[in-house]
């Protein structure tokens, strides 16, 4: 259920603009890895290139190689939809499908995969909602619109939707930045449970959050505006936050810049 991700020399562009340059890092299975760094340093871009969502934007492209258990996801023969099914993504703002009920939202991915049997969908929906710690709150109103939930519930609904298709990896792009502290705590608790099954990579602006939830932390930064983002330091979270190896990392986590 979880796989190793290896990025080597990943460089991503928006048109002519180089957003990240030569990122090399390895993410171990069943861990939580946090990507931190100042705004515009390319951590979200890197995250989006892991499930090939970067190239959805017009003019965007990725160079270098990204392998999942030794399979290059940017290989010419690879089906991009299969990559995205294997590597799920949770976005910054909760984005349940507004026209769908809670139930339909959770099983949307399964329906895309051609699952039609009601019993299978029911079972998968309950399992995903339980994993997302949302089942007890919504089990009596599965037919109600997903957009009617609170922000925190919506984000957990989106997590349920993502894990319902049983991906290997779950990417989270600042999943708590639009949420209040209590909802944030619920999502963080959830991450602890989810890492038993999935490899999780999370982009966050909240350094306490990175320290709380992650096993490994990658610090990205840029020299100045317009320069590509680079990976400055990548190590165990404890080490990064207690004894970083690079001066720039220390400056960032102690709040001296960024």
């Amino acid at each position, binding site marked *: 259920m979880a796989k190793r991700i290896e990025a080597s020399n990943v460089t991503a562009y928006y048109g002519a603009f180089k957003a990240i340059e030569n990122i090399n890092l390895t993410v171990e299975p069943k861990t939580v890895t946090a990507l931190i760094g100042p705004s515009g340093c390319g951590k979200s871009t890197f995250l989006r290139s892991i499930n090939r969502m970067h190239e959805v934007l017009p003019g965007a492209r990725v160079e270098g190689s990204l392998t999942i258990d030794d399979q290059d996801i940017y290989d010419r023969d690879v089906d991009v939809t299969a990559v995205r099914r294997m590597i799920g993504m949770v976005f910054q703002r909760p984005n349940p499908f507004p026209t769908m009920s809670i139930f339909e939202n959770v099983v*949307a*991915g399964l329906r895309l995969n051609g699952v039609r049997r009601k019993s299978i969908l029911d079972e998968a929906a309950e399992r995903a909602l339980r994993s997302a710690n949302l089942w007890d709150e919504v089990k009596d109103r599965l037919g109600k619109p997903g957009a009617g939930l609170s922000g925190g519930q919506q984000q957990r609904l989106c997590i349920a939707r993502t894990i319902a298709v049983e991906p290997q990896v779950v990417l989270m792009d600042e999943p708590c930045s639009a949420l209040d502290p209590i909802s944030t705590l619920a999502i963080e608790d959830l991450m602890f449970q989810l890492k038993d099954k999935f490899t999780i990579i999370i982009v966050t602006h909240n350094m306490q959050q990175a320290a709380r939830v992650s096993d490994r932390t990658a610090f990205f930064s840029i020299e100045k505006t317009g320069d590509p983002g680079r990976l400055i330091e990548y190590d165990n979270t404890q080490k990064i936050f207690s004894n970083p190896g690079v001066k720039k990392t220390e400056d960032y986590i102690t709040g001296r810049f960024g």
Partner: protein
Amino acid sequence: MGETPHRSAHAGTGGTRVTEGHDRPAGASVRPAEAPVSTRTPGGAGLGGGGGLPRARAFGAERAFRALTLAAGTAVLVIIAAIAVFLVAKAVPALRANTENFWTFEGWFPNDAEPKFGIGALAFGTVLSSALALLIAVPVALGIALYLSHYAPRRLGTALGFLIDLLAAVPSVVFGLWGRDVFINPVRDFSAWLNTYFGWIPIFGGDGPFGKSIMLGALVLAIMVLPIITSLSREVFTQTPTANEEAALALGATRWEMIRTAVLPYGRPGIVAAVMLGLGRALGETIALAMTLGITFNISFNLIESGGNTIAANIANTFGEANDTGRGALIASGLVLFAITLIVNITARAIIHRRREFTESAA
């Protein structure tokens, strides 16, 4: 607030510059002008520590604008009522003079000494030609709209969108001329072909002549409503939140699956509205159909034989030589057309309304 007249009198009395408008409800515009004066007599104990509150103007841009909008709103009601009264007053005598059943008689001879006319065939022709036109136009229009919003390169999309809007600007009489002089030839050939090979299906049956048929009228209508439906639904499709499109893609959807999961459900009320607008235009279309239909007065599902007529086309064709009763009969047919359009619009609203719970929380 330097423009209020009372300010200078109380210039030194206090800094409270609260406008008087706040202590009355926003809707209460009619207010006796002299009432507040007593509370703010110069020198008296006013509200703001010295009676320094400026007085509301008895007449200003605010009230003028309110009166203007009220007048505009009332005018609509007055005009509608006037039209309704006129239509009914003219229609009733003609309907009384009718010697046949207005709903079932297939024919239109209101100018005879014994007036005979019936709306059935016309109403049937109106609904049939419009429904057929939509059946042809909607899939094409939605296809074009989706191509423009989600597949075409941006530049091509803009150019094509402009062309489509241009199509909407062509006057209907031009469509009519083109339909009866040019487009009729391929349609006639196609009709003959359909008749030869599919003549066993009643709608393609008969033995001619072909040409100025419901098929031709509906095809011309379809081209005329195409731009409305296309540009409206394209507008709706481009408004789909990027977040929802990305959510679908991130679940492993192909582009078409993304459109089915995120774009079409989101745009559904808009699509319904666009189709209904197109239907409204098709039902009311007059001159193009008057020129392309065969003008007969019988109820028939045959699509390719010369024939067909609609309420609006019949009004255009026969109004010129109508006498008093004839005009009354045409006005009565206009009322029926109005009723059909009303029913269509109410149905559309009901469809949009039904899943309100879902569409509203989307906003």
